[in-house]
């Protein structure tokens, strides 16, 4: 039997498949359909200090093999999350990673401090939401990234995953996050994208720019994970257009320790558990005992011994 588990900082995931933030709620909605304890972990919808109503509709727009979204961080706020959602998340039988978004470094600090609770297995700092009007993306900038991560590192002992946007000075920002005490790099969030309604000549979203996800962006996010895994020594968690176990293997070969499934959940609601099964089968069929031998093998001339 292969060991499908992966270690990210102090956390051991039973397998490398996570549900990505913003696509899986707090896990309970998908638990109506399948046993979500089969997943390696669930990353929560982004939590902010105060509740947020999010952006007006429409919030979704399809593009060829892609999906633009403009949700705008709708969430119940930290208090309601702690009182109602976190206790339920802990009962789902898999790792709980809480994604947080703050207006400034201090807000991030307060969020991670108050989330330093048993049952929170890691905290993912969302430095990459494309859907808040008038806010630059922290993760595009190394100095801004370092400030947020440093404040959070002082505020908690929890593992800190840092989720980056796919554009901007991400490689430098990831190095800055590592120096500031991050535990892992999550790459990446959606691409800033746009769609325009021909009838009106106006952007389809009230905020104009939305975030592009789905199979359309997979080669781009795979390239980013490939580059990131060479410039940081931290574990990299890959995401962006992953819909099949083959996609996930590519990310692992590019250097990822784990992967997140986002839009894949919408294309096939059973996408994530199918990945878990497919990845295990891959290890068995290749006679691999664990992920060690193939993780990052694309940087080393491929699978050792492969013709």
């Amino acid at each position: 039997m292969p060991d499908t588990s992966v270690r990210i900082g102090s956390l051991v995931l039973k397998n490398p498949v996570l549900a990505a933030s913003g696509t899986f709620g707090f896990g309970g909605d998908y638990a109506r359909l399948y046993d979500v304890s089969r997943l390696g972990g669930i990353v929560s919808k982004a939590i902010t200090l105060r509740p947020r109503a999010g952006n007006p509709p429409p919030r979704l727009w399809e593009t060829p093999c892609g999906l633009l979204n403009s949700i705008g961080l709708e969430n119940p706020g930290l208090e309601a999350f702690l009182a109602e959602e976190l206790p339920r998340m802990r009962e789902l039988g898999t790792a709980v990673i809480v994604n947080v978004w703050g207006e400034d470094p201090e807000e991030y600090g307060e969020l991670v401090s108050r989330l330093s609770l048993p049952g929170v297995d890691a905290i993912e700092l969302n430095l990459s939401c494309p859907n808040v009007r008038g806010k630059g993306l922290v993760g595009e900038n190394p100095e801004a990234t370092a400030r947020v991560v440093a404040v959070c590192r002082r505020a908690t002992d929890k593992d800190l995953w840092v989720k980056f946007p796919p554009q901007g000075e991400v490689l430098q920002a990831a190095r800055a996050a590592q120096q500031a005490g991050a535990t892992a790099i999550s790459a990446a969030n959606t691409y800033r994208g746009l769609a325009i309604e021909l009838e009106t000549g106006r952007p389809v979203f009230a905020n104009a720019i939305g975030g592009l996800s789905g199979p359309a962006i997979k080669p781009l996010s795979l390239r980013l994970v490939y580059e990131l895994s060479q410039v940081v020594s931290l574990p990299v968690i890959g995401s962006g257009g992953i819909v099949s176990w083959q996609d996930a293997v590519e990310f692992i070969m590019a250097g990822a320790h784990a992967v997140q499934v986002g839009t894949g959940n919408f294309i096939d609601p059973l996408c994530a558990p199918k990945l878990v099964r497919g990845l295990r089968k891959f290890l068995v069929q290749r006679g691999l005992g664990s992920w060690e031998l193939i993780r990052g093998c694309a940087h080393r001339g491929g699978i050792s011994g492969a013709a």
Partner: protein
Amino acid sequence: MDRQVSLVRAEVVENRELVPGVFLLRARGNFSAQPGQFYLVRAWGLDPPLFRPFSAFDLSQEGISFLYAIRGRGTSLLARLQPGHSLTLLGPLGNGWPQPEGKLALVGGGVGIAPLYLAAKAFREADAYLGFPGRPYLVEKFREVAGRVWVASERGQGGHRGSVTEIFTPDGYRVCYACGPREMLARLWEMCRRAGVWLYVSLEERMACGLGACLGCTVFTRSGPQRVCREGPVFPAQEVF
């Protein structure tokens, strides 16, 4: 406790074009939706990425049917389906219509009649007011199960010439269930509010997960943001207008 949802494949039995661009799709299988609930439907691979949400039009021992109009890429692909092809269905989803108390009117515009047929079957003696942009369809099916049925269409085919809100009067009803274009629903709300008739509307919104997780289908109501796929698709009209 939340109801369970299933993801199933079903075989297409019939995909009939009722009037140009409007189809009734029947699929085989054992389904159990409440009136006003919906399914996410797809019959393609990765593209377009999202399922399409459709109200259950009818349920029988043989299977389920959906009424849809060609609007974009997804519905164009559905329109090509032939008997024997397979569909993927996720559901049943959403809240459905409440149990009516008192005399019920059903008001539908175009393919907005879709969630009303099961209501007509379940809540006997409901009157139906059906409006169509062109030639009417499925009126006979409503006549089999509803109380009285009135029809309006733009050129007067099948009944009144004009819009459905011109033939509907709230007098004599306690409650009204409606689905159709937003302007129609807004007009109905004006009428029902003045007459003291409870109006429930079934809303449509672009949707990704259908399960309540992604918040893509949120609408703003008087009680704050609500998910069309979970708190809806049926909302009391005073919440949304």
